[in-house]
């Protein structure tokens, strides 16, 4: 055994696993050229993880790999892998090699032995195919054959030395009961934890009847890593680890693009609609048409030809479609064309994290651009509160990172009606737009009121609107305020009618008045004309009178002279 260690490389390089979430947790993957220990109980997903690491390496990162199977035969492993969407058969033999190394129980053993035979063979194969990754699956099986602990320890160190010499990036998987994670170091191969450069623990437990898979990086020499337990699921594509967006990652590109809410008037109230990649929260009590509002959004998205995912926790997908059809929101055609995918999340059992991971996986598979979660508060119902706490943030981080426009509905408790502001997952503080739906009970009827509590980055209306559902669709109506009281529903209608009648009366009265005035004016004009005529007549009469008087005087003077002349009897001196 050689003991001289080459000086450690200045920068730790990493071999990406290509496993969703894991590379984020470890800041890039497994330590390249070093060994990683993967421990976990039965059925915790060790083999799946290791196999996926090799397949991704061979297919995506140009790292040929070797899978050394100590427990199951390679045929069985490959058959099991068929259930995943990995297309294992396509990977050529020279890129991914399976080696059966199940110990033969028929052998007689006398005395000590070692694993050099295997390493010699592996060394040749690794060189021939230029392997850069290797997995020793179920190392404990072969170690159990060695006569004593000292031999096991020696062989593990021999193996490790061999790996280091060849610069292979290795995963050892090892069985361990991890009910108490701290007890791992107490177990037979606990010393391996100290030997390897990276140690990952897989845990499969049942909490309150809910299956929960967790992964935790226990150590990672020379690298920072997410130290918390991260929930994961094993889906069609293999591992999927839930992660929080870590600090230092570039922020998501923001956009000014708007998408319609599906309701014209609401768009106007929001100054053009929701922002693309925004998170919209619709809160309200049961029956306030939260689903309807989110359905309108989904329909509008499909009409634009955007792939949409509708996750319903309350009812079956078909029920939602039927119910929405009653208010003129037709989703069935988009379901048929494949644009829309309905998921009844009642079938997703598990913690909030699990549901989130599943939703993410489904959204990715559907390539969804728009997402509806109805209601998101259901996420908080399963699992522990602690687990549910970060889910909201993770949900929003993810949707923004993937530029998915998301509409979430959330149920509010009747009790918290007065505050009316706190949602179970604390999404309300994180959401970009928050629309609140409420009931107004008045004059023996309930009506739906809608208001925008906040909408980041947009001027938005402060008005409460009445939400009206009919088989023609969803509309928003102005509400009436009278004497400081909000009027909705029939009262609004009554008020509207009364105003209409009053307006008609006023119009008629105005017309009547106009006619009357016209008549009066006409009459006055006529009278004015008559008086003017009379005035002219009087003037003429006056002129005539003056003329007549003058002529009579003249006549009279002339007449007396003439008469005297005619009489001639009187002496002219009488006139003197």
């Amino acid at each position: 055994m050689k003991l001289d260690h080459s000086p450690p490389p200045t920068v730790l390089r990493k071999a990406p696993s290509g496993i969703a979430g894991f590379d984020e947790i470890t800041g890039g993957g497994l330590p390249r050229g070093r060994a990683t220990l993967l421990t976990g109980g039965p059925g915790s997903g060790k083999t799946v993880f290791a196999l996926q690491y090799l397949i991704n390496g061979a297919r995506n990162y140009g790292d040929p790999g070797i899978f050394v199977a100590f427990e199951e035969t390679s045929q069985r492993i490959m058959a099991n892998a068929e259930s995943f969407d990995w297309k294992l058969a396509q990977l050529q033999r020279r890129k991914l090699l399976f080696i059966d190394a199940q110990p033969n129980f028929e052998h007689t053993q006398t005395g000590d032995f070692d694993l050099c035979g295997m390493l010699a063979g592996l060394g040749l194969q690794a060189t021939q195919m230029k392997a850069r990754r290797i997995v020793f699956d179920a190392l404990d099986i072969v170690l159990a054959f060695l006569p004593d602990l000292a031999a096991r320890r020696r062989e593990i160190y021999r193996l490790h030395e061999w790996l280091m010499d060849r610069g292979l990036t290795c995963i050892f998987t090892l069985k361990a009961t991890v009910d108490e994670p701290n007890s791992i170091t107490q177990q037979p191969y606990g010393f391996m934890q100290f030997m390897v450069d990276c140690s990952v623990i897989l845990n499969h437990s049942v909490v309150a009847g809910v299956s929960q898979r967790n992964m935790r990086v226990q150590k990672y020499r020379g690298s920072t890593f997410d130290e918390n337990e991260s929930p994961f699921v094993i889906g069609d594509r293999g591992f999927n680890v839930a992660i929080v967006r870590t600090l230092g990652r570039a922020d998501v590109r923001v956009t000014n693009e708007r998408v319609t809410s599906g309701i014209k008037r609401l768009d106007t109230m929001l100054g053009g609609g929701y922002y693309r990649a925004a998170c919209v929260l619709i809160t309200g009590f049961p029956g306030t048409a939260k689903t309807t509002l989110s359905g309108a959004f989904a329909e509008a998205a499909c009409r634009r030809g955007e792939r949409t995912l509708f996750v319903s926790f309350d009812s079956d997908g078909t029920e939602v479609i039927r119910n929405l059809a009653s208010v003129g929101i037709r989703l069935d055609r988009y379901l048929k064309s494949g644009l829309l995918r309905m998921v009844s999340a009642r079938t997703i059992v598990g913690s909030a994290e699990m549901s989130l991971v599943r939703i993410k996986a489904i959204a990715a598979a559907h390539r969804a651009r728009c997402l509806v979660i109805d209601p998101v508060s259901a996420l908080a119902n399963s699992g522990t509160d602690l687990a549910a706490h970060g889910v909201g943030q993770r949900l929003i981080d993810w949707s923004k990172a993937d530029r998915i426009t998301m509409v979430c509905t959330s149920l509010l408790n009747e009790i918290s009606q007065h505050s009316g502001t706190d949602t179970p997952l604390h999404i309300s503080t994180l959401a970009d737009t928050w629309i609140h739906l409420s009931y107004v009970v008045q004059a023996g009827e309930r009506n739906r009121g809608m208001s925008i509590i906040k909408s980041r980055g947009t001027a938005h209306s402060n008005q409460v609107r009445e939400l009206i559902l009919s088989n023609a669709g969803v509309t928003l109506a102005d509400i009436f305020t009278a004497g400081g009281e909000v009027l909705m529903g029939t009262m609004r209608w009554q008020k509207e009618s009364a105003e209409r009648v009053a307006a008609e009366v006023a119009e008629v009265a105005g017309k009547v008045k106009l006619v009357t005035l016209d008549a009066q004016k006409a009459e006055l004009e006529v009278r004015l004309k008559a008086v003017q005529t009379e005035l002219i007549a009087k003037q003429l009469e006056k002129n005539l009178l003056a003329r007549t008087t003058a002529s009579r005087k003249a006549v009279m003077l002339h007449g007396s002279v003439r008469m005297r002349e005619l009489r001639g009897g009187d002496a002219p001196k009488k006139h003197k």
Partner: protein
Amino acid sequence: MTRRSIYKFRLYVADDTINSSQAIANLHALCKTHLSGRHEIEIVDVFKEPQRAILEGIRMTPTLLRLAPLPIRRIVGTLMDTQRVLETLELDTRV
């Protein structure tokens, strides 16, 4: 033992590791004692001939194969327990 058949052995070893050296010594001693004059031993170093280790399915060293007489018998280890080795090889120890 009436049949004087030849015993053919092949011992896979790894370099000059302690286990391998012990196995070689034990095998020689055993043959000298019990199979004097009727044995052949081939020693294969897996590090020198890794291709053979792959083809012949050798994972643990040292591994002893009895190729003749048939059937093939396989013993893993340093061969320190002579009695056990003799039993596996079906050798009559009374000779």
